[in-house]
């Protein structure tokens, strides 16, 4: 028989016999395995997808791509109108190509029964052939004012329909209905309303050799574009889909990592607790001849047994839940629509192994501690709680706290992207530091918090106070998961909300608006909507340098710019207008200096020479371009919001898809798509971490309560009623949650204040500290409920059974 086998089988026997003691580790590992297997299955399924509406074109030709850094999804420069015509001719001339169809897309959102429909993508009628989508009834749109609609909208040919365009609402006649999504305008009108062309689809005659056309197309276009056929066509995935996928990937990766590391943390603390309560047993093993190595092996054996079962069950459930998660991700906007999850055996096998590794990793430090138990401990009466805090722990805790406070100070003066990383660093250092120092901090805080309890007439208060003080280690280790949950929740949500509020505050402070017009059920504000009540707005667009690199820009009006009181460091804002633009200093340094005339590509592919009229430090965007110039070259651009300087109009004209909010409420309205995604992501992170630490809280409190069964019996024998005994336990666990909450706030508040100061410095505007109080209260309530519930549930058994228990 193998020697290591003894430890393993001993571990197995222990798990079989005392499965309740391992419930916490099991729950943590099970949860972790579900999350890791579901998210990794979803992650591996998330590849680029060819949109349905291009599926019928066997060869796709797209504009050349520029090198982009990770996470940058700025668009590629479109072809110029002349280039499109030339390429179309050249491609159509290839043998086997029936038609070369440029893909023209624009903003067009039909209003049905007074409500804008969800799908807002308009196309030229000829693009419908790329899917292909076919007419179900009526005729194709042949002239301006005609539109073909998705038949699911239920509009009959010949009826009138309102369509929101970038200019505003327009009346159209339905010419026909189509068996696919989208709004189709006549080619002529679409060419006027659409931006530039970035893709030409080739429709081939039946039986044509696709590879031959592919290579002929490459020769035909040379460096003017890229050619894709077969499965490679997924490269034509819309940038927006790629961006959503990327964001989803970030979210899923973060969640997997959080799940795995939380599982390690919870397993580690559960095992540490278990080892502390079983020192006597390990001492006995040592006394009858187990070497430290064999004792360690027995703890690993326990971890392995729990890990295998939890990981197998969790991985299996995760695989079942993965498709549900996929649908959820699409619904939340973390994956483009049409995303489907495929379960792969090898990835599940990987998850299973990861689960076991997590279990073993969690048991690592506990097993070392178990191995160091001396055989003499088998003879001690009970596990004593007065082991002093090791000096190394005090030093490490103190250092981390100092580092955390220093981090908060640095955060206050940091700028840009460093702000968030410093903030996170500060939080991590403070959380770890306080958790290490908890046994030191706990007594004074408990003494303070329970002072009124000691004055009460009942016995409960006194017992709670004294027992919490007597076993500091237990109090501290049960408060630690609460500290982490509350600290993390306050910090992460506060950080997100404060950052979002700061940018809005900065925008609002530049404009000094009283109210804000926001899109309501539409993709953005049309010109008509953005002009409601004399509001003014900016039009986001992209400019392209000669090398094809995109520069984000805003279309703005001179009067409003002057009214905003922006101070140029060079040049004058008076000259803004026509072909004259305003830039930020970093843009000026890259060849767009004051007075220079630069050729700039626009969204429609045209190149215009622009002159830099002024350089302004605190510009809301990199480049400001006169609004009408943007409108002329980017016919589908939509404003994200519009600001009303004076009094808001009493009534909003209907059918525009707008609503008006007061400027002070604006910060709290998560209207922005990115804000919404970030917020959902934040709440998900908080939920996952709260779920985990919830397991930790329940486990430690249950173990602690089980260990105190004898105390409770003594309490009962001294004349306490069952109710009084249980109340003692409940009040004590509430005390622990209060302690953890106080420490958690002590972590989060300095970090957030540091961040707020940093943001205010960076944006030179006062930034409010926004705390999502309801969410935080929910988290604290969750901790309270769980702690009291777990402790009372465990204690009830001890209190009930004390009558038929004799001695041991």
């Amino acid at each position: 028989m193998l020697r290591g086998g003894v430890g393993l089988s001993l571990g197995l026997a222990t798990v079989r016999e005392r499965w309740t003691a391992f419930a916490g580790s099991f729950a943590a590992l099970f949860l972790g395995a579900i999350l890791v297997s579901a998210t990794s299955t979803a992650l591996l399924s998330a590849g680029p997808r060819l949109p349905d509406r291009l599926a019928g074109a066997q060869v796709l030709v797209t504009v050349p791509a520029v090198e982009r850094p990770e996470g940058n999804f700025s668009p590629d420069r479109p072809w110029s109108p002349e280039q499109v015509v030339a390429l179309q001719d050249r491609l159509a001339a290839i043998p086997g190509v029936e038609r070369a169809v440029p893909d023209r897309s624009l903003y067009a959102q039909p209003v049905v029964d007074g409500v804008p429909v969800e799908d807002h993508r308009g196309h030229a009628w000829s693009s419908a052939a790329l899917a292909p989508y076919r007419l179900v009834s009526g005729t194709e749109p042949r002239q301006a004012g005609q539109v073909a609609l998705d038949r699911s909208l239920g509009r009959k040919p010949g009826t009138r329909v309102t369509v929101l365009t970038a200019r505003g609402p327009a009346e159209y006649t339905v010419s026909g209905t189509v068996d696919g999504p989208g709004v189709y305008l006549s080619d002529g009108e679409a060419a006027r309303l659409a931006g530039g062309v970035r893709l030409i689809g080739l429709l081939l005659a039946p039986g044509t050799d696709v590879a031959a056309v592919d290579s002929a197309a490459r020769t035909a276009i040379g460096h003017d574009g890229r050619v894709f056929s077969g499965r490679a066509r997924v490269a034509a995935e819309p940038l927006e889909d790629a961006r959503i996928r990327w964001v989803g990937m970030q979210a899923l990766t973060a969640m997997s990592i959080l799940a795995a590391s939380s599982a390690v943390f919870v397993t580690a603390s559960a095992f540490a607790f278990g080892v502390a309560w079983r020192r006597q047993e390990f001492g006995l093993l040592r006394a009858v001849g187990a070497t430290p190595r064999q004792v360690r092996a027995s703890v690993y054996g326990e971890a392995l047994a729990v890990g295998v079962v939890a990981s197998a069950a969790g991985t299996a459930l995760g695989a079942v839940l993965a498709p549900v998660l996929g649908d959820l991700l699409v619904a939340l906007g973390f994956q483009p629509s049409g995303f489907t999850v495929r379960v792969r055996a090898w990835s599940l096998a990987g998850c299973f192994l990861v689960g076991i590794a997590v279990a073993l990793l969690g048991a690592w430090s506990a097993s070392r501690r178990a191995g160091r138990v001396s055989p003499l401990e088998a003879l001690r009466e009970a596990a004593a709680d007065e082991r002093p805090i090791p000096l190394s722990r005090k030093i490490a805790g103190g250092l981390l706290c100092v580092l955390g406070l220093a981090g908060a100070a640095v955060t206050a003066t940091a700028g840009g992207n460093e702000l968030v990383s410093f903030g996170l660093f500060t939080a991590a250092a403070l959380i770890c530091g306080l958790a290490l120092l908890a046994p030191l901090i706990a007594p004074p805080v408990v003494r303070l918090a329970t002072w009124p309890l000691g004055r009460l007439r009942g016995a409960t208060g006194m017992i709670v106070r004294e027992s919490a003080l007597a076993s500091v280690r237990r109090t501290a280790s049960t408060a630690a998961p609460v500290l982490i949950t509350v600290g993390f929740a306050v910090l992460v949500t506060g950080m997100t909300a404060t950052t979002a509020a700061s940018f809005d505050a900065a925008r609002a402070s530049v404009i000094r608006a009283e109210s804000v017009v926001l899109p309501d059920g539409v993709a953005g504000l049309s010109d008509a909507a953005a002009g409601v009540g004399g509001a003014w707005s900016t039009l986001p667009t992209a400019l392209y340098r000669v090398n094809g690199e995109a520069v984000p820009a805003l279309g703005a009006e001179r009067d409003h710019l002057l009214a905003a009181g922006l101070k140029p460091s060079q040049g004058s804002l008076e000259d803004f207008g026509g072909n004259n633009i305003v830039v930020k200093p970093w843009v000026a340094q890259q060849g767009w200096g004051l007075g220079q005339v630069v050729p700039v590509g626009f969204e429609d592919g045209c190149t215009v020479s622009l002159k830099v009229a002024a350089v302004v430090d605190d510009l809301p965007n990199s480049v400001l371009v006169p609004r009408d110039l943007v409108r002329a070259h980017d016919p589908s651009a939509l404003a994200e919001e519009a600001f009303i300087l004076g009094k808001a109009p009493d009534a909003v004209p209907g059918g525009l898809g707008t609503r008006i909010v007061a400027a002070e409420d604006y910060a709290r309205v998560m209207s922005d798509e990115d804000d919404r995604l970030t917020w959902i992501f934040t709440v998900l992170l908080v939920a996952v971490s709260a779920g985990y630490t919830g397991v930790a809280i329940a486990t430690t409190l249950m173990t602690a309560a089980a260990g105190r069964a004898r105390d409770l019996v003594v309490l009962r024998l001294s004349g306490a009623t069952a109710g009084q005994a249980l109340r003692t336990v409940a009040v004590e666990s509430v005390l622990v949650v209060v302690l953890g909450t106080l420490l958690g706030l002590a972590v989060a508040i300095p970090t957030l204040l540091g961040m707020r100061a940093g943001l205010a410095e960076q944006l030179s505007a006062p930034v409010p500290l926004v705390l999502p109080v309801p969410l935080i209260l929910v988290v604290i309530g969750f901790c309270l409920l769980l702690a009291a519930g777990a402790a009372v549930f465990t204690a009830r058994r001890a209190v009930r059974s004390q009558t038929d228990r004799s001695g041991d």
Partner: protein
Amino acid sequence: MCSGESGTWLEGMESKQSVELWSVRRTYRAAAREMRALDGVTTGFEAGTFTAVMGPSGSGKSTLLHCAAGLDRPTEGKVVIDGTDLGTLDETGLTLLRRERVGFVFQAFNLVSALTAEQNVFLPLRLAGKPVAPEEIRTALAEVGLADRGGHRPSRLSGGEQQRVAIARALITRPAVLFADEPTGALDTKTSRHVLRLLRDLVDRRRQTVIMVTHDPVAASYADRVLFLADGRIVDELVGRAGAEEVSARMTSLEARAC
């Protein structure tokens, strides 16, 4: 008759000591004060004898047992078990020696609760990686009168039964010496007698060396020799089986002297 025979055998093997203590001193530091638990103890425990160690609480009798058994290391002096000087062994060496040459029976918390009686008895051999025939385990349990209880977990055994399983486990490795720390401390009178008779029987039939710490004169009356400890020193000794009254009288005079 039987004891006479045992006596001659003992005389012939006089130099055969299972455990020897040479000037063993053990001090503890507690709150900056030095506590002297053992203050220069020199004694030997002959093979095949049953020795009881008695003394008032705080006299150092438990420390003596821990040091003699290799559970604790003396501050000064030398402990020899079965010819091996414990001072020359590292932690693992000490563990291996305990596993092979020493058996333990404690007052309580004696068994691993997750394992059955049989598995508990089997444990030291499994830890040593030695193959065991199932009959051997059954015989060992039968010897302590628990032939039919092998499949039960400790929670389903009475205190006396648990103690007898612990004795079977301590003997499974055929140790040179069996240490017992208040083995009857948690048992009622009747069960105590049973356990003590079992220990006595082991000495008589198998020439097992037994060293037992106790505060119960009745328990001590089962031993061949009683050592009396006070303030970390051996202050008295009764050789030959003594009655409980005699042991009790010595204890009383010891405690009277201490006051």
